[in-house]
């Protein structure tokens, strides 16, 4: 009877020590996560073209017109992006003659068709979302206002669009 008692006592002691060891250290894990986005690409797909313009006659190109400018954007599917623009106030013929341009209009969509959300291009951010395949199409229109004595020639300017994820 004594022997089993000693054995059980020793067992209890051993278990107590094991329990003490088990609770003296512990560990847990967390996860590190990141989502790498597809880099954005922007292509000037089509120039904004006013065609022939006559002195003294304003000419407007709507975003739905064939002469509308177009930017094609590609990036991460369904990602939020913001659009901002650097817009000229004049076109130049390279000889110091200027042709005022303004009344900018914009439209963006994810299908490449001429229907979508209208906006006013500006230096401020316009927010939108890329399509499920990561595409966005941006159309630009505007108006030139030639003077009655506007010198004849070829006028051009640069329209810059910047796209960033947000």
């Amino acid at each position, binding site marked *: 009877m004594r022997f089993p*008692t*000693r054995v059980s006592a020793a067992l209890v002691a051993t278990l*107590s020590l094991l329990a003490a060891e088990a609770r003296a250290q512990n560990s847990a894990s*967390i996860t*590190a996560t*990141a*989502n*790498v986005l597809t880099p954005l690409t922007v292509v000037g797909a089509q120039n904004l073209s006013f065609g022939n313009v006559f002195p003294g006659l304003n000419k407007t190109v709507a975003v739905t017109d064939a002469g509308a400018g177009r930017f094609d954007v590609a990036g991460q599917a369904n990602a939020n992006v913001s659009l901002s623009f650097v817009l000229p106030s004049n076109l130049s013929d390279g000889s110091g003659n200027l042709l005022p341009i303004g009344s900018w209009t914009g439209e963006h969509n994810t299908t490449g068709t001429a229907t979508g959300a209208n906006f006013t291009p500006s230096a401020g951010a316009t927010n939108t979302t890329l399509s499920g395949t990561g595409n966005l199409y941006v159309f630009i229109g505007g108006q030139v206002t030639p003077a009655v004595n506007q010198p004849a020639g070829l006028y051009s300017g640069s329209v810059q669009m910047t796209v960033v994820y947000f």
Partner: protein
Amino acid sequence: MRTALLVFVGLALVAAPLSGQGRPLQVRGVRSLSFGLLLPGIPTSTARTDPALSGELEIRGERNLEVVVTFGLPSAMTGPGGAVLPLAFAANDAGYSGQQSIGSQTAFDPRLPFRAVLSRNGRGSIYLGGTALPGNGQRAGTYTAQITLTVAYTSP
């Protein structure tokens, strides 16, 4: 039977000082360390003080006792097709708060063991930041890695 009882009590008394603690030492992950959205080629850091993105683990144990915490830090995250995204941890990227307040941390180097004293209620929080280093040609997708924290009492 009396002898057995005495032996048991004696051994239990011996065992108690060995454990040194009345409450089990527990650790649990509270929040993952997130680097959010990354662009290829642009290193992105998450601060240990970021309440939304920093990693957080909670320790529970015996009040006012000292513990040593040791991170198991990955060198990279794994993503689509086995692609890897390197991680870096700097000397100031971990923090401990006995008050469990992200705004009141003692900074430490997560690459090294760190000694901390549990609060009066036997708790403490560990916060972790770091830097993700995507390459220029980093494949798009979700990347993950496991970070382990081991905590032990410093006295037996």
